[in-house]
């Protein structure tokens, strides 16, 4: 890994890291369910309201501006404090952009609630709908597909076993961005299990994501039951495919790549570049999926906001208003709801019902696995 590649990698990190966070957050207001805006339940006609449109563009400008400022600051840090300074700045900038986007969303949410009151958007009832028996809607890929992760783990183990003889006596374990290896381990049979452990943790995270998707409530819009159920089915299936494919790709790239570098077949620098590429593919793919399908499949069918098929009143009604269960419009808390996993409001994907202990248990278990790995590494 020579100086030019390191410079390019640094440049890309500085440029893209905050933007990778900013882009999906900026796009979100246009990707949400048609009955939500900035985490507030609204009738679909709200998306054509002038004040709401102004809020959306205002939010976009705020987050894009914050991102641009962060990138500039990271460059400045690079000039003043070199590579280390630039990396620190890029890291902090990423967190800052996320925080600023959340603050902007909260501000927009309060304004939307004011508009909602003034326009008199009120739900008369509490209408809900669900699909029963076989419907035309596609189903997500089943959990059985995750057994492919076991196959990938076996491959990584096998590569380690077969390549053990090639392993040098001093095994490089970690490399910094300049290409210098800064951590070593003494060759022993235990070393081939490190990549397997890393891959196992990564695979666990992806498997849990798949399980979350499968356990979620399946939302149905009572005013457009058949088409909303179908759209959600398309969306959930697409994301299940993404989780299986990208999940395998990421876990296998990390484990196998690490293993190949340990046994000396592939250089650690090459593996680093490969992993960065995989990460970019995963993130760009996710953003693309979000734009293509929208939240809950809101973009599966091309239709005007509030101009839904058979909706004579132009989408001005709300079958239900559950704002009171959404803290800040983003955190779901509802004791009376048996669902542990529900679709997000402001964002793509799923979130927990934090009033259910099962959600906390799941999060705690996941954290133990994710945090446990580096701890175990450090101890070994």
């Amino acid at each position, binding site marked *: 890994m020579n100086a030019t590649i390191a410079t390019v990698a640094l440049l890309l990190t500085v440029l893209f890291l905050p933007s990778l966070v900013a882009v999906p957050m900026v796009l979100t207001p246009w990707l949400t369910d048609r009955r939500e805006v900035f985490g507030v339940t609204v009738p679909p006609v709200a998306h054509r309201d002038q004040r709401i449109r102004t809020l959306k563009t205002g939010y976009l400008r705020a987050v894009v501006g914050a991102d641009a400022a962060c990138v500039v600051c990271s460059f400045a840090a690079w000039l003043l404090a070199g590579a280390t300074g630039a990396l620190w700045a890029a890291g902090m900038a990423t967190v800052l952009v996320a925080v600023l986007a959340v603050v902007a969303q909260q501000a927009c949410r309060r304004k939307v609630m004011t508009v909602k009151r003034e326009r008199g958007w009120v739900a008369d009832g509490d209408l809900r709908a669900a699909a029963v028996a076989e419907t035309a809607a596609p189903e997500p890929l089943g959990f059985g597909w995750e057994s492919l992760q076991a196959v990938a783990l076996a491959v990584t183990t096998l590569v380690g076993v077969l390549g053990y003889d090639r392993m040098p006596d001093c095994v490089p374990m970690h490399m910094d961005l300049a290409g210098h290896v800064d951590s070593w381990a003494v060759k022993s049979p235990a070393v081939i299990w490190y990549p397997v452990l890393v891959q196992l943790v990564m695979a666990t995270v992806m498997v849990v994501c798949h399980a979350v998707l499968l356990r979620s*409530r399946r939302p149905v819009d009572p005013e457009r039951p058949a088409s909303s159920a179908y759209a959600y089915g398309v969306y959930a299936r697409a994301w299940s495919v993404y989780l299986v494919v990208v999940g395998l790709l990421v876990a296998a790239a990390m484990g196998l790549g690490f293993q190949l570098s340990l046994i000396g077949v592939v250089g650690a620098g090459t593996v680093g570049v490969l992993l960065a590429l995989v990460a970019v593919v995963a993130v760009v793919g996710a953003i693309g999926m979000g734009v293509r399908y929208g939240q809950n499949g809101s973009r599966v069918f091309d239709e005007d906001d509030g101009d839904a098929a058979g909706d004579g009143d132009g989408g001005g009604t709300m079958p239900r208003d559950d704002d009171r269960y959404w803290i800040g419009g983003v955190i779901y808390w509802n004791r009376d709801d048996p669902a542990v996993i529900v679709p997000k409001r402001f964002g793509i994907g799923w979130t927990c019902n934090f009033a259910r202990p099962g959600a906390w248990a799941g999060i705690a278990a996941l954290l133990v696995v994710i945090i446990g790995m580096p701890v175990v590494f450090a101890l070994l």
Partner: protein
Amino acid sequence: MIIDIDARSDVPIYEQLRRGVIAGIANDELAPGDRLPSVRALAVDLGVNLHTVNKAYALLRDDGYITMRRGSGAVVAERGAGAADAPGDARIEGELHRLILEHKAGGGDAAAFLDLVRTQLARIYGE
């Protein structure tokens, strides 16, 4: 098939679910052998208590509209299965009695009630 409920209605949710499934069977949207969602899945999808869905399924099973087997869950029963007639008919007679009482108390006569019946029969059986 889609089931609708109104959580703010005076009609209890389990009763709305029961009526929804029965309507589905009557309209041929649910065929014998169709599998209904598990109690948990339907409760989660609608955001209602598990006991509510349990009660609805229990009532439907007692009236013979669905069968419940360990492992395969709730399945729409064959039409005209023995158990369906007796409790179902008793309930229908009881509700008819109540409705006709209301109609009479409101000043209606028998002929008017029969007209109402014919209208609904036409809607459902499409004659």
